[in-house]
């Protein structure tokens, strides 16, 4: 085992959390408070699992998961932009809906997998995780991150997304089609979440039971928040959490912890990370979009 193998072992968790956090961050930059993240993450995990079982190809699963997730992203974008609906209420509703749908998609797939294994004992799901593949995942993450950064800071699309997040009314007055931009941000953002969830399921933990992945969307939420939604800084926070989660069991053995306490640690870390971001100058340097979560509705009223 070379020196880099332990580092590469973190790759599946890393790309999973990173892409999810990145996609979430991009969508939130357009001003939509994304509380549906855990629901969509859970649903995408189930979809990825099921699609891999049915089609035999993890890449097919990746594509389908991304598309399904993107549809939900667009749905959320439309709901909160066209109607004066609270982002939180819309997001939470979608979260529960996705929890329900995810369970309905994943459960039959468990039985389907058993059948397939009986017919063909060599049938497995998931991406192969050789050290080369792991390195590829890390590289892909960094490249996607750089592309996201470029898009956000140098292209008109990125400017429009950021403008919508800062002040959708002013953005509209400046010529931005707020609905269109939020739909694009939603599609891209959620597609990335779907991709992250796919890697979570097919590259890192290729099993499924009804609670698979639940709560981990929130970890990605914290990862994104603690990094100020900056595509490159998110690499750092995602890396930290991925390391923590990959070596959770090692940690557990080393410190003789109960497995339940070990499970608590990432969630406690999530809260701590968010607190650190909020109380340090990080918050001012990487401030959240000014209109995040604000209802986009101009009341025609004088006074």
């Amino acid at each position, binding site marked *: 085992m070379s020196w880099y193998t332990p580092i590469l072992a973190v790759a599946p968790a890393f790309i999973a959390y990173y892409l999810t956090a990145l996609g979430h961050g991009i969508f939130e930059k357009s001003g939509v408070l994304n509380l549906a993240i855990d629901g969509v993450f859970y649903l995408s995990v189930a979809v990825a699992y099921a699609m891999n079982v049915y089609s035999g190809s993890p890449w097919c699963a990746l594509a389908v998961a991304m598309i399904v997730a993107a549809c939900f992203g667009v749905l959320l974008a439309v709901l909160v932009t*066209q109607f004066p*609906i609270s982002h939180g209420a819309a997001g939470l509703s979608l979260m529960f809906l996705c929890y*329900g749908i995810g369970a*309905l998609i994943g459960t039959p797939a468990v039985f389907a997998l058993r059948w397939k294994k009986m017919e063909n004992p060599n049938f497995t799901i998931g991406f192969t995780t050789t050290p080369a593949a792991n390195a590829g995942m890390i590289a892909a993450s960094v490249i996607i991150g750089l592309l996201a950064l470029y898009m956000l800071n140098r292209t008109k699309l990125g400017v429009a997304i950021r403008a919508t997040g800062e002040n959708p009314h002013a953005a509209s007055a400046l010529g931005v089609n707020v609905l269109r931009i939020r739909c694009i941000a939603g599609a891209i953002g959620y597609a990335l979440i779907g991709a992250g969830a796919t890697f979570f399921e097919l590259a890192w933990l290729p099993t499924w039971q*009804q*609670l698979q992945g639940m709560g981990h969307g929130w970890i990605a939420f914290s990862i994104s928040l603690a990094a100020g939604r900056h595509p490159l800084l998110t690499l750092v926070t995602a890396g930290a959490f991925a390391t923590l989660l990959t070596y959770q069991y090692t940690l557990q053995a080393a410190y003789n912890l109960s497995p339940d306490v070990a499970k*608590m640690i990432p969630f406690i870390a999530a809260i701590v990370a968010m*607190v650190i971001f909020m109380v340090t100058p990080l918050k001012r340097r990487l401030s959240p979009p000014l209109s995040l979560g604000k209802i986009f509705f101009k009341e025609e009223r004088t006074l």
Partner: protein
Amino acid sequence: MVKVVVIRRVKPLPLGSVLIPAASIIIGILLSALILYVLAGTSPVLLFINVGRGFVSIETLRDFLMLTMLGAALVIAFSGAVWNIGEEGQITFGMIGAGYIALFTALSASPAAAKVAMIVLALILGGIWGLLAGALKAYVGIDEVASTLIMNYIAYYFLDYLVRGPWMGKHTYGYIRTDLIPATTQFTPIPVPGATITYEDIVLTVIVLAFSFFLLWKTALGVRIKVLGSNPDALRAAGVNVPMLITIALGISGALAGIVGAAQLAGYLHRISYPIESHTANLGYTAILVAWLAMLDLRAIPIAAYIIGSLDQAGRLLQTAGLGGIAVTNLFIGTTLLTFTVLRVFSEYSIRIIR
């Protein structure tokens, strides 16, 4: 090009506060039926039959009482626009408090003292868990939905650790769970066959509901919470300490939810099984639907609690495609809440389509 123009109504939709929740429930059921049919092949007829059974099932009474308490607790928080999604965690900590008194203290000798102590400790621990999240929002600025949800998992895993570790029972027959709590600490079931509720449950529900009414309608704290939900800036200018108010609102909500944890343990479960997240009745999330469908009006909470409790029971009866009832419950919460959120727009705004 069709443009949708949304204009605020001068007067709200008449009967909106009844029509909209009712429509949301009906549409929610229909949408859930559709999704269940498409994805799981569940017969819609079977679904509707079970919905009907849920309404008349005597087991629904338990959910009704618990959801009334949880719903009232949420109305207090939601009225202040403090989104307490963490009742599951607060219930869990309530259970921890009650469990500790019941299993590990000598108080179990006297039923009255034990039960009171269980409820009080449950209230305190649930309240602290709520205060924590409230303070994180008020003083650090962390969105309470994210924090309370994450804290739910922390609470689950903490109880799991206790049950698997120091609280592991001696007579468990291979299951990972605590012992049964002593008979003196168990609540007294009402003498109706099949009913799973106890006298104490009823008393607690009445007390919690009465307290909530009193708080919101008769105290300055209550008025301030209501204004908090409408315009915190006005409160600040009026001289109210808004961060403290937010913290207290979540704290009170958490304390009341903690009581439900005690009631669940002493009145129904009688022991805690591992892992708690698989055994939870999910009431902390279902209560969100109850609070919203009641339009945050305490008077409608019992009604909403009964309806949602019935549907929850229906989900359990349905047991479709090898799924636990929780999946169906989540699905239903999702469709109904989504429909409600959209329909609610119509009560305050009128939508015009301009070509």
